[in-house]
């Protein structure tokens, strides 16, 4: 993650006096954040959309630094911090961001800004009943609401690669979900990441503690680990017996192991994962958490662990128990064939011959609106649902011919849109760089674009002799300020799991 790497030079050392503060009012624990942000027009990725503004809240943590959710500072063009009771805002900047887990650390360079602010201490454990207090910045005042704890549950992280605990609470706050800090007494329980009607979803202190610890650790930010394999319940005695397991079924069945993931090379398809990190996993995929009771085992890699650690595990394989070590690998949503969220990247694209080529990803699909699952082109959706994590070294991204800027040069193709590109001039293309390179190798005076069947056509033919001239005219006519933007460096996928020695 580029922002995370760039931020590593900032000091995250604990000041000596950070924990000396006595009980203090909430006003000294939170700071307002004004965020001016600007996203990209996904249809015309050379254009930025109109700038917008959002008001968020950050909580003061040891450092002193300001903690908020990554989504609050996404696409920020200007970040300003505002202390309660003061009319002035001062510039702020991101020092660490983890979009996967949805947390960000922000600092303010203005001298004296942190005077009078007191870092919050994190709750050691989540409350499982009773009430908590949610705080929101509204009209330059703090609005304090009470929430009732509903339950602790394992859910997918913001970028969906990590599963971890969330606290679910029923709140009186209207329209929350914008990074409101949640306190139990004077301890920070978590930050609200979303709210549906009265149900708030709170990113818990345990995850925040892990994030802060990794942010403060020297060297590269390790990140939270992904599970790295797909699984299904093992509740069926017939299936368990077929795999040679006697007695009541237990453990979960491994169905596929992700390339480069934590299970790669050590877990096999049709293994039954019996224990992980010393915890017995039941046939439904739950384990007995010491504080929260039965919760889904997928939480274990994020439960006090980080990428790079090895977790002991036992699998049922070939009719017997086998002990293995699962080395946790960092979550890498960016490695997906169809990345769901692109917090760090500008959209990569190329406008050539009036055709707009781009990577297929979540932001593009979501540009159809909240009901994109109903209205976005079916072909793109099918690819997203079925093959999103099928990246391989020779297929890193799906390239879409998203639209056509009509011109006499591309006559006959003006209504073409949202078709998946297979080849250009006979060369498979899986990145924008490959698209650009392929156009450098025309065939016999023509550019030939091969499209995946399923749309109205499978081949586009363009003239080479007038290609450059058309590019100039189309670029000028449609005010395409930049005709190309290459992709960010792609993460290493690692070797295929079958070639990894156990």
């Amino acid at each position: 993650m580029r922002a995370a790497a760039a931020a590593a030079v900032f000091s995250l050392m604990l000041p000596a006096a950070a924990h000396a503060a006595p009980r203090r009012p909430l006003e000294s624990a939170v700071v307002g954040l004004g965020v001016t942000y600007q996203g990209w027009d996904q249809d015309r990725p050379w254009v930025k959309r109109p700038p917008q503004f959002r008001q968020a809240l950050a909580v003061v943590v040891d450092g002193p630094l300001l903690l908020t959710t990554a989504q609050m500072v996404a696409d920020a063009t200007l970040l300003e911090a505002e202390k309660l009771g003061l009319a002035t805002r001062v510039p702020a900047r991101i020092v660490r961001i983890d979009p996967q887990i949805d947390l960000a650390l922000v600092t303010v360079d203005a001298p004296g800004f942190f005077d009078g602010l007191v870092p919050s201490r994190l709750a050691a454990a989540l409350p499982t009943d009773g009430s908590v207090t949610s705080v929101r910045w509204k009209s330059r005042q703090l609005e304090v609401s009470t929430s009732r704890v509903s339950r602790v549950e394992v859910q997918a992280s913001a970028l969906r690669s990590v599963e971890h605990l969330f606290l679910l609470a029923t709140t009186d706050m209207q329209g929350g979900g914008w990074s409101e800090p949640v306190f139990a007494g004077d301890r920070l329980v978590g930050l609200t990441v979303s709210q549906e009607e009265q149900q708030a979803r709170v990113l818990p202190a345990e995850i925040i503690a892990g994030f802060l610890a990794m942010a403060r650790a020297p060297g590269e930010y390790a990140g939270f680990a992904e599970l790295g394999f797909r699984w299904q319940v093992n509740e069926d005695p017939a299936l368990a017996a077929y795999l040679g397991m006697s007695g009541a079924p237990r453990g979960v069945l491994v169905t596929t192991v992700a390339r480069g993931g934590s299970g790669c090379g050590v877990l096999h398809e049709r293994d039954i994962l019996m224990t992980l990190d010393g915890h017995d996993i039941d046939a439904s995929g739950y384990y007995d958490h010491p504080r929260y009771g039965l919760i889904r085992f997928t939480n274990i890699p994020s439960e006090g662990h980080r990428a790079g650690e090895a977790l002991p595990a036992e699998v049922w394989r070939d009719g017997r128990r086998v002990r293995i070590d699962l080395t946790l690998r960092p979550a890498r949503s960016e490695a997906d064939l169809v990345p769901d969220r692109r917090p760090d990247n500008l959209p990569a694209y190329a406008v050539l011959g009036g055709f707009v080529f781009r990577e297929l990803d979540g932001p593009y699909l979501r540009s159809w609106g909240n009901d994109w699952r109903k209205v976005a082109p079916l072909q793109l959706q099918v690819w997203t649902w079925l093959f999103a994590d099928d990246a391989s070294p020779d297929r890193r991204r799906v390239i879409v011919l998203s639209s056509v800027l009509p011109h006499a040069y591309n006559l006959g193709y003006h209504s073409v849109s949202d078709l998946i590109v297979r080849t250009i001039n006979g060369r498979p293309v899986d990145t924008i760089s490959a698209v650009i390179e392929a156009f450098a190798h025309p065939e016999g005076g023509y550019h030939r674009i091969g499209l995946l069947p399923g749309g109205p056509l499978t081949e586009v033919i363009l003239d080479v002799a007038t290609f450059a001239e058309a590019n100039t005219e189309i670029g000028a006519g449609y005010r395409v300020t930049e005709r190309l933007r290459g992709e960010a460096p792609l993460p290493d996928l690692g070797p295929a799991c079958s070639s990894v020695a156990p």
Partner: protein
Amino acid sequence: MTDGPRPLRMLRMSEQPFPRRRTPAAVTALLAALVFPAALPAPVARAAAAAADPADEDGFERSIVRIVDFSQRGDWSTPWEVSGVRTSSGSGFVIPGDLILTNAHVVSDARMLLLYLHGDPTPHKARAVILGHDCDLALVRPEEPGLLDGLPALELGGLPALRSTVETYGYPAGGDQISSTRGVVSRIEIHVYTHSGVDQHIVVQTDAAINPGNSGGPVVQGGRVVGVAFQGASDLENTGYAIPVEVIRHFLDDARDGHYDGYPDLAIQDSNLLNPAARRRAGLADDETGVRVEFITPGGSSEGQLEVGDVLLAVDGRPIASDGSISEAGLRFDFGLLVDRHQIGESVSVRMLRNGERRTIDIPLRLHPDLETHANLYDRMPRYFIFGGLVFVPLDNEMLKTYGRDWVSAADRRLIYEHLYRPLIDPPAPGYEPVVLLRRLDHPVNINIAWYRNQLVTAVNGRAIGGLKDLITAIETSTDRWLVLDLGEPGRFIVVDRAAAAAAGPGILSQYGVPEDRNP
């Protein structure tokens, strides 16, 4: 494909993979067949057969009948069941041969058909003798011999001119009095026939009011039938569609031997050759036009005859423009109109350009091989097989409709891919039909199976499954203790204790009221 401004982002026809004459459900959902849901049976107390109506100058109103269909459809979500009885009402008219011509959708899935003659309250039993679901036409014969004696058979005319006036006749809204409306022919085009959901043929569009119940009634000009009213567009005002005489005659010619074969199809996809570079690369001379063959459906008429990349220059001697249209009666239609004019078993003459060589070939015409899997199905029960309470069905359009009207967006993406995309991207051998584990009839022998709804079944004990009958054979000939069923998702499988499931089978069928374990 047509030129024009980029459409709004909607689920458009061109965004779904259908060969020529294939139409997505999203389009057909906007159209409505025009039967009237007749909640009440026909009136019983009325005067005896009326004398000739003085307003009926041509005397043909007497030949226009009302048809009431008491129908039951198979239920594809519980494929051994039928729906409740639905009563609907449409229109029809007498043609030579003691027959009544109407729409197929007026008489589909009939348990009983009743005819009401003009001005006569007496119901007369009838039966559909020929159904053409692809052209939405049917022939009905009264069970009483001589019932139609004395009623003039209506004569067929030709294609009405654009802007000319036509009159529609029928029994809209289930009324027992004949109704007529007048309007102009506003458009003549190739259009979706919503009854099958996939067929496209020529239609006459009129602004004469065509309402539910008009279905099957004649559209008349100059005392001759120029169309059969059959569908409307729910999102447009004053838009009704009629099946023109060309299609009626094709149907009647086909049915002449007492059996309906259906419309032939080239079963290809093509694209325009409007772009100068594309035309040049295809080898077209400056004065030549044509379209490029994009896809050839395995098992269809064009397999072995055409190749991807061929340029179709002319059909039956008529040049194809580079947008795929031909000139006809001063209008332009898709060249498929010319193929439509043939019957199955005939050949169509195609002039084409391949590798710089121009040649003319005759292509023997067949049905489109995907009709059974992609069209709406009528007058049949769903196919299924139940083993150990697991219900297996073929993947087809009717199965996907169990997800509801918006199945295109609601159905499991694996099934959508298998149904719509895989046949184009990775065409299976002709005859292959995907099989789906539709549901489970809960029983201790199957209650712990992890995946049991709408799962594609790809293999049984390592044997690839090519269809429902193949699955039945694989299960019933197995002597293994376990049946391991590989499902469509990578790595996903279920295991069935074969002997236990077989032993539990009869009890499960009995408990759930399933009369047979199969309809293969």
